[in-house]
């Protein structure tokens, strides 16, 4: 762990875990029709926006309908990916047994196939959040976001790399899930990589076919307009997802952890790692909804299977816990977090050096909560 957060001993970690568990249990006990009403309302908006967007693009002739159509399509894609797809695939609605909200059955409107993304994301990223060498989402192997990642001259151009990754984020995520680098290291045989690549290629083909062939052709003479609108909507969605996700893990203050931390890791330490490895974005309801509530990345990492629209309410309790335990709670408006990520990307483009590790804590040094934790 990097030194900015206080170090807790195992007893304190267990108490912390009990408090966070209690917040989750309370939310879970309340699950019901309100959660389904929420997600179905968002789905309704996304469906209507998609039809409206595609309609305006296909049938309009003026620039205004082009702008509105592209906007509506972008909105629908953002909602579908962020609030619906991502959260459904986390199993946040599995309890309802609704086949349309089943984490295994859901397929999203993005080039990476759900099944491979689910494994890479739900397992590797959420279990090993910000652990060097284990969380492959740490900089997506393309950019260097901490001094602990070994430097090479390629990182000198990483501000440009990051921009490219932002524009083609869905492709970045999909390629990332293929783990091509394992081919070079010998961890995966070409056959294994091919087995991973096939579903991706098939899905990507259909995705390209949909937005760049099928819908443009359907519009007849308006094909170029539809093609451009679809492309802009994809780019817009990509940039937005990239911004939200980078702000969630890589602003200043978000910590990275050595692999040794995983050994016999307690629930409390896992919680602490999620808490200190994530960052929130402050904003209004629109910000939360459009980010799929990843504006509450901290709560999402603490409670990944709780319906995300409950994070704002849970955040109040999490912040109270953090304040009492003297734990950092990284939150700032979008602009601040983006600037912070940009600074980090610029700084680590150069060969920065990691800080020295701190000595092990003793019980006396570790902080005690201001008042006794609630008994579970």
């Amino acid at each position, binding site marked *: 762990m990097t030194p900015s957060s206080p170090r807790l001993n195992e007893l304190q970690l267990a108490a912390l875990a009990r408090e966070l568990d209690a917040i989750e249990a309370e939310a879970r006990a309340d699950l019901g*029709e309100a959660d389904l009403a929420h997600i179905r309302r968002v789905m309704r908006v996304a469906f209507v926006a998609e039809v409206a967007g595609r309609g305006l693009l296909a049938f309009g002739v003026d620039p205004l309908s082009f702008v509105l159509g592209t906007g509506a399509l972008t909105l629908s894609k953002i909602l579908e990916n962020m609030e619906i797809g991502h959260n459904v695939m986390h*199993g946040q609605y*599995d309890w*309802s*047994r*609704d086949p349309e909200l089943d984490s295994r059955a859901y397929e999203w409107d993005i080039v990476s196939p759900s099944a491979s993304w689910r*494994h890479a994301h739900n397992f590797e990223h959420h279990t090993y959040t910000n652990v060097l060498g284990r969380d492959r989402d740490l900089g997506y192997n393309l950019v260097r976001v901490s001094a602990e990642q070994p430097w090479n001259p390629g990182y000198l151009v990483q501000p440009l790399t990051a921009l490219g990754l932002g524009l083609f984020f869905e492709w970045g995520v999909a390629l990332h899930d293929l783990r091509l680098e394992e081919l070079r290291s010998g961890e995966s045989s070409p056959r294994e990589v091919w087995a991973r690549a096939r579903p991706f290629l098939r899905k990507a083909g259909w995705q390209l076919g*949909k937005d760049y062939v099928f819908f443009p052709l359907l519009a007849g003479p308006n094909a170029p307009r539809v093609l451009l609108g679809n492309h802009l909507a994809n780019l817009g969605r990509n940039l937005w997802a990239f911004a939200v996700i980078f702000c969630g893990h890589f602003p200043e203050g978000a910590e990275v952890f050595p692999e040794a931390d995983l050994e016999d890791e307690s629930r409390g330490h*896992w919680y602490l790692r999620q808490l200190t490895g994530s960052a929130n974005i402050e904003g209004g309801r629109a910000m939360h909804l459009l980010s799929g509530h990843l504006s509450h990345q901290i709560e999402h990492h603490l409670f*990944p299977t709780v319906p995300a629209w409950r994070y704002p309410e849970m955040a109040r309790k999490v912040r109270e816990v953090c304040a009492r335990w003297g734990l950092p709670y990284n939150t700032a408006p979008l602009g601040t977090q983006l600037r912070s990520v940009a600074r980090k990307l610029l700084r680590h483009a150069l060969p920065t050096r990691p800080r020295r590790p701190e000595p092990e804590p003793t019980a006396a040094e570790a902080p005690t909560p201001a008042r006794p934790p609630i008994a579970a």
Partner: protein
Amino acid sequence: MTSPLPRLPRLPPLPWLSARDRLADAARRLFLDRQARFWLRALDPLLDPSGLRARVRRVVEETADVRTFVLEPGPGWRGHRAGQHTTIEVPIDGVLTRRCYSISRAPGALAITVKRVPGGRVSGWLHDHLHAGAVIGLSPAAGDFVLPEPLPPRPLFLTAGSGITPALAMLEELARRDALGGATLVHHARSREDVIARGWLEGLAREHAGFRLVPLLDDAPDGPPGFEPQRFRALVPDFAERATFLCGPPGLMTRVEALYASAGASGRLRRERFVAARPAVSAPSAAARVRLARSGQTVTLEGPGSLLEQLERAGVRPEHGCRMGICLSCRCEKLAGVTRDHDTGATSEEPEPIRLCVSTACSDLELDL
């Protein structure tokens, strides 16, 4: 030794045969299917292409604790035979929950008749929340508790409580086909007021001379209650020669089964059970046996830990990731049995997917592994 047959080259699928499937596949990959579902459902929930639906037309108060829900099925409904049942699906606190109900009307109409079970989750919800206009899910009609063809000459119906529902459908069918003449219904209820569809039954007895209606009422001054063997033999001396349809609570069923067995007439008895045998719920520490549906193997789970750990110890290697309930890699269909999810604290009694790494067995199980 027989020589192996030469292996034929596999022919490519005929394009026109799978055109429909291919179209459906393409629609799914272009995400047109969910748009179509959404708009059809907005137009009329009965048109929902993702499953059969029915709209509640009317709710009829049968007795103090029994209601009939008259249903109008969507276009996918393929009809039923008198005596069959359907599985309905309703959202209770947002959770889709299923239960079986016999169809209480003859083909051509659709209705279910539900008794409120004390503490019952679904029957209570149906009574309290299901009103005219609501739309519910249902499965195609199923079951072989039906009138045989050709119709038996003197059918005998032995029912109790809500067990009368499939008999109502069969009696209606017999009446419609003018074959009610030799039929007898022996029905057990607490009191006259508790007899479901009493008015209709009495009318039926008036109109069809040969139809015999025998109510056995707990509050009647004469005779012992229910299907006491001696009384039953006196009431229907020729029972062993008649095609018999039995439906009621487990106690009654066992008693009548014994009676028919002793008369050597078990072959004449058709039965419908309303209660699925509940798995014996064991203490969490007890060893549970798990049938693995895909491999056909059965293993015994012992010792501490989650189902995932116990299965691994038994030599089964289910897919997994985080081992702490967040990645869903270990999510697998539980086909039968009761488990407890230690993450949510919920007990799972019905067939549904569970997370092996945070669940423990509360009974013997069947898993889709």
